[in-house]
């Protein structure tokens, strides 16, 4: 049952990634990309690794994903796409062979466990990471404001 759920989630992620590539509108492409992230987070949640799921959900989907969707909605260009179909077929076959080989040879030992409390016994490091990210964001905003006022 577990394998079926993970397989379905993985297939949904790949399908959304293909849709992100096939869509010519940046906005829809960003929406599909966010859906891929949701399914990746869903796989973590399904395995019971809630700490990583929360990090992906809050930092990646909640902050970066939303900003990407907003940016794509602002610069919503329709992209003409020129790519050789022959090369595409060759690359896809190689990617499938490599993915199946890696999947078969991946070594998984036992049940899934989460050790977030052993890595970060208190939340100080996590708060420091968040402060660094916020400072980075603020530095960019200040830089933009200074350029505007100059």
């Amino acid at each position, binding site marked *: 049952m577990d394998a079926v759920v993970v397989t379905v989630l993985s297939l949904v992620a790949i399908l959304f990634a293909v849709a992100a590539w096939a869509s010519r509108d940046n906005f829809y492409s960003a929406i599909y990309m966010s859906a891929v992230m949701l399914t990746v987070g869903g796989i973590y949640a399904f395995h019971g690794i809630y700490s*990583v799921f929360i990090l992906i959900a809050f930092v990646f989907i909640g902050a*970066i*994903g939303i900003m990407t969707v907003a940016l794509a909605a602002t*610069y919503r260009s329709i992209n003409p796409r020129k790519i050789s179909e022959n090369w595409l077929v060759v690359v896809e076959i190689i990617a499938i062979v490599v*993915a199946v080989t890696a999947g078969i040879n*991946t070594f998984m030992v036992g049940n899934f*466990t989460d050790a977030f409390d052993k890595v970060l016994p208190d939340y100080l490091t996590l708060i420091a990471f968040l402060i660094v990210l916020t400072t980075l964001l603020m530095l960019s905003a200040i830089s*933009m404001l200074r350029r505007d006022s100059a």
Partner: protein
Amino acid sequence: MIETAASLGLLALGYLIAVSAKDVIRILIALELMFSAVFLSLIPFFTNPSLVVEGNAIAILTVFTSAGELLILISAIIFLDKKFRTTAIEITDMGGDVL
């Protein structure tokens, strides 16, 4: 097993989006897909009791460093548009600022 295969599939699709991109927004989307592939590839760590702590530490560092990198890229895209009034990928081939 399935997660690793899906991870490689997502990575290949991320590369495909990056090489067929016509504007930098697509590059951003491609990078985020590649980081999703990285997160999926970390899952086998969490099955080995002797590597779970390392897996958690790598996951935390990966989430924050990749988020910082993407934030810088988002700022760079906004600056690029303010300076050149376009986000077309040809602009990025022209080199840096003239000092």
